[in-house]
């Protein structure tokens, strides 16, 4: 490719990105203003910059750290549970021929047609019947269940593409299906596992309605509930809200940066070819 066309590429890319980034910029910058500055000049650079809002959240209030801890625990376990259940299921569907693999595939994929909102009340009743209301476990189980369809969808697509010869080679060497799973599939699967991890993480970390309904104890609240607590019934402390949002985003941003490479290769192999 010629350099000249790269220059125009860069210019177009940067301009588009700047437009896209604007809302995020407004938030990131908002936390460094007082509420007064923010309302008088919402999008300008803070002058002078103040760290009061950030200090308030990080130092004065123990809440933020509690919310963060809960979000990490909940999302972490949701991801773990999703992987532990989705990988074997996707393996069975994609690598073993039996009557009904197509059925099970469609059965799980059908779940992609429902947003969690649709069944929120029956789900709530279900959690109550199991005695899981008010517990993080109830939240984790239901979030993991709702992330299964997408995960199985992506993983099945990926596993299908692993050459059959490999599987047969394992059998000839006297290995079982489990040998095949652990020795061949898992080592090859880091891209697709990363993709599923990040998609599940995004969904779980950002869920608002489920945790709101399931959790009662403020000490178990996750970050989106924390944002709600900040907004309050009657108050709009915009600068604090923005500082809170910015900080709450950092863990996600870091993780995304680390996993970015894998997302694309995982999607390449999984969803796109599936």
């Amino acid at each position, binding site marked *: 490719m010629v350099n000249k066309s790269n220059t125009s590429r860069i210019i177009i890319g940067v301009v588009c990105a700047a437009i896209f980034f604007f*809302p995020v910029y407004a938030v990131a910058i908002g936390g460094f203003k007082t509420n007064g500055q923010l309302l008088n000049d919402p999008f300008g650079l803070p002058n002078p910059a103040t760290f009061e809002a950030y200090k308030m959240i990080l130092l004065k209030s123990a809440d933020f750290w509690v919310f963060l801890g809960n979000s990490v625990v909940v999302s972490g376990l949701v991801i773990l549970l999703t992987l532990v259940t989705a990988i074997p299921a996707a393996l069975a569907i994609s690598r073993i021929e039996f009557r009904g693999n197509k059925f099970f595939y469609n059965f799980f994929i059908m779940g992609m047609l429902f947003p969690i909102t649709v069944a929120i009340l029956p789900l709530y009743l279900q959690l109550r019947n199991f005695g899981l209301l008010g517990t993080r476990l109830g939240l984790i189980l239901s979030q993991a269940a709702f992330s299964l369809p997408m995960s199985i969808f992506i993983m099945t697509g990926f596993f299908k593409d692993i050459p059959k010869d490999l599987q047969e080679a394992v059998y000839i060497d006297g290995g079982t299906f489990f040998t095949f799973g652990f020795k061949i599939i898992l080592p090859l699967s880091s891209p697709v596992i990363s993709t599923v991890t990040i998609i599940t993480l995004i969904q779980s*970390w950002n869920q608002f309605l489920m945790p709101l309904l399931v959790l009662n104890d403020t000490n178990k609240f996750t970050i989106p509930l924390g*944002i709600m607590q900040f907004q309050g019934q009657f108050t709009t402390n915009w600068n604090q809200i923005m500082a809170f949002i910015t900080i709450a985003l950092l863990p996600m941003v870091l993780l995304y940066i680390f996993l970015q490479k894998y997302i694309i290769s995982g999607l390449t192999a999984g969803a796109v070819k599936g």
Partner: protein
Amino acid sequence: MVSLTAKRQENARKVALVAALLAPATVLFVLFVVVPVVQAGYYSFFKWNGIGSLDNFIGLKNFGKIFKDKIFHIALINNIKVVVASLVIQLPLAFFLALLLGRSRFRGEAILRSIFFFPYILAEIVSGIIWKFIYNPQFGLPTILSRLFLDGHEIGLMGDPHRAFNAILVVIIWKYLGFHMVLYIAGLQGVPSELEDAAVVDGANKFQIIWNVIIPSMKSTFIISIFMSIIGAFNIFDVVWALGQGGPVHTSETLVTYLYNFGFKRFAFGYGSAVAVTLFLICFVFNIFYQKFVVSEEK
């Protein structure tokens, strides 16, 4: 005889293996997704306020009421608007950006990609807060722009029944574009560069290459992306809710906010469930058509 027993044994072993592999996911899925969803379907045949006993069976009356309700029509049209905006603006733009940023041609590409993907990471509730701030009629961006370039009138997009939903469409495009861009970038990796090179040798220009070489070889990516985008468009909820709860005057209602406003908020749980079932049927029918005519044709 022996081989038959062996075969049977092998078969039994296979069934056990399959069962063991599928059981955890199936149990989890059935208990927390299938059962609640089917229950919601069951409630749709009742007039039920969600409290008290479920004894007022009214058959399909809830569904009749849905189809007569004008606000339901508004909601359905809005969902279709989301579909159109996705297909006509969002996906082409995402594809354009993927072509621009997907081939690792210059340093910093990864950073730009991250910026486009970023809104997808944001919680819906957070996106709502941010955009409400940006759209604020008194100090928000539209008003600032109007002061700079127009007559300085304050502009209140979210309070204008004719423009509120368009303002929401902007947010939807902004939020989900990055996801599709990443899908397309992933798809691009699968386009053999030899094909492109061959086309260049043949003297094809850029657009011809994109049209004749890249797009056909990314067909399966488009199939997935369009599918997700349409299903997502019908299920859209959080962003719309966070921005205006379906207002002003129900003009920005979508099917799921409608479900929430007219089912949950009014204690009409049977009715809300009927809306949920309708939504599911729309997605399901679309799914079948899509599988039949688009996906199978590709194969």
